[in-house]
């Protein structure tokens, strides 16, 4: 019996759908995170980073 026979019998194709759901959940979490209030200050500082070559915008 070859590996492909064993794997073929294991019905793995359902995993693709599980992975997709996992991805969607993770993605929604990220969206909520990005648009949650209270992060604006960090983002404002971060967005200025390219404009100053010498001074860290988000030190510590």
């Amino acid at each position, binding site marked *: 019996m070859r590996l492909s026979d064993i794997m073929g019998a294991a019905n793995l194709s359902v995993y693709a759908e599980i992975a997709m759901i996992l991805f969607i959940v993770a993605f929604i979490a*990220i969206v909520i995170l990005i648009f949650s209030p209270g992060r604006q200050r960090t983002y404002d500082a971060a967005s*200025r980073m390219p404009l100053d070559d010498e001074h860290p915008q988000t030190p510590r």
Partner: protein
Amino acid sequence: MNARLDSFSYDDDIVRKFLWATMIWGLVGFLVGLIIAIQLTMPESNFAPIWTFGRLRPLHTNAVIFAFAGNAWFTGAYYSSQRLLKTRMWSDGLSKFHFWGWQAIIVAAALSLPLGYTQSKEYAELEWPIDIAIAVVWVAFAVNFFVTMARRRERHIYVAIWFYIASIITVAILHIFNNLVVPAGAMKSYSIYAGVQDAFMQWWYGHNAVAFFLTTPFLGLMYYFLPKAADRPVFSYKLSILHFWTLVFLYIWAGPHHLHYTALPEWASTLGMLFSVMLWMPSWGGMVNGLLTLRGAWHKVTEDPILKFFVVAVTAYGMSTFEGPMLSVKSVNALAHYTDWIIAHVHTGALGWNGFLTFGMVYWLAPRLFQTEMYSRKLMEWHFWLGTFGILLYVVAIYSAGATQGLMWRAFDETGRLQYPDFVETVMRLMPMYWVRVAGGTLWIVGTCLGLYNLFKTWANRPAAYEVPVIQAAPLSREFFDDPHAPAAAGVWARFTNASWHRKWERMPLFFSVMTAVAVIVASLFEIIPTFLIKSNVPTIASVKPYSPLELAGRDIYQREGCFNCHSQMIRPFRYETERYGDYSKPGESVYDHPFLWGSRRLGPDLAREGGKFPDLWHVRHMYNPREITQQSIMPAYPKLQENVIDFDNIQKHVDAMAMLGVPYGDAVNKAPQMAREQAQQIAAGIEAAGGPKGLHDKEIVALTAYLQRLGRDLKNASAATAPPTAAPRPAVVAAPGGNR
């Protein structure tokens, strides 16, 4: 706060090196592009063996992707990363190793591809020793980059760096898995995957090479250099983060849209289509974000050629990322696949997005790196307008060429027969548009030359010694204090949205990188594993047998000459395809194809059922000079194939490598050269008897003919019990309906 301040300076020397490499290799890559564009209009400008379309086309694609765009990314990455992380690159030695290693690889590619050393997988043509060198150089780059990140003096990692990280990691994964081969000589190898699986792997790679070599790195550059040039922060930082995560999540799934209506399983191609359409949203989010960064600064665009380059680049990004999802919709793809439409799509992206973003970046960098004024603003303007008109001429002509050919292939007349049964008719119709392409490409190249001249003159005005500013900044403290002004988080939900944990990730570059890698790998595995391990996805066909040793040698020649650049071997299940070429291709037919040679573009007819359509002598004469058979053919002539002697000694090595991959070769494992000689004698005798040239029994043309006559025969043999056995198929002397192609 930490009272101690570090003093350091940025390494701009490495940026200057990469900048010159970008422009010089860019010019080389563009020139090769012009040469192959001319070859398509004038077949006489092909000179076998080295100077043919089939060998130069991979050189063009590799040069513009890996030499031009690659060096452009490195230029911008070395400049921006040091400044965004407020630290010098960790190791100047590794930076230099990366630079010289990468240039050496480019030189190796420029030599080996025209010499015919190729793995025959698009954008992964380079043979295995060069692939190993690429991996080594890439690891050096990655190590240098990640240690630099760990030593940064800025807490937050700017979004441009996220794009670089994702690119570095994903390119490494793609490169390694698509290039797994069994060597069969110093510069020869066979892919460990076969047929459908190889095709799946290749387009998982091919699509993501576009995503993670031409898109995400350049988005990183956009998010750094566009704010710089406009002198204002990006329109929405939130949107840029969303852009990043969506691309990382979606792109990796989209590869199968390159294989619609092929022998790929239906579910995989539908999955690829869905994810491709979903990609439209974040891509346009990114485009809008780029354009809106210029809000309140549009008056500058009329004055500043750099911003002009950027605006056109971002617009081209929007156009090609709109078109990509559209092309991935199956019904649109049915028309566009195998035609010039794809070539036009790619050039909107490559010339508009990658090219113009690079030029804008180079012009922004030049006065800063060479510490002098730009030599001529007027030349920059000229470069911009020549480039813009070059792009327009190119894409308008080639879009119409694609649509024209696609429509001609599927046209039936009122009696229900193909309206254009002669393939060459559908090629001839494209010639005016091909000349317009030559004109467009020429404008583009003139613009590039002006750019190089301008850069050279700027460089000539540089100071005797470059000034190296010393920067002072505090190192990051080990104890992290989150924003003291932030409201205290209460409850699970608040803690989640407060996201201190995410900021903690951001402070841990290696952890963050690992998470990105996990996202990419998980998506890849879940997409790929089913095709590889579920047998029912690739039904076997009992009558399909391995190639005979001589046919394998012929296949090697087919690969060497790059025939797959113009001839597909994959008939789609449409009536207009089966009428023209024969029964549609089945997944089980290519189980011994290491690598698969399905092709992606038809400048000549499909060859999947070529075997037996024409007599052997037809192939001999056709290869000697295609225009003796089909007056208007644009195929290069290969007269040398009648003189070159088959490398019988190496056949055994090649058969052994295939046997190692599990191809059931039986007797041939011991006496491949002998079997090859016997079959060659037989075919040569037949050619001679038919009135063809004498003494071909050990010449390459016989091996190639044997291979071509084998294509698609196994299935015919299965349906016709009277057909001869598969071991040494003899061609039936039957001309295809429609006759002269």
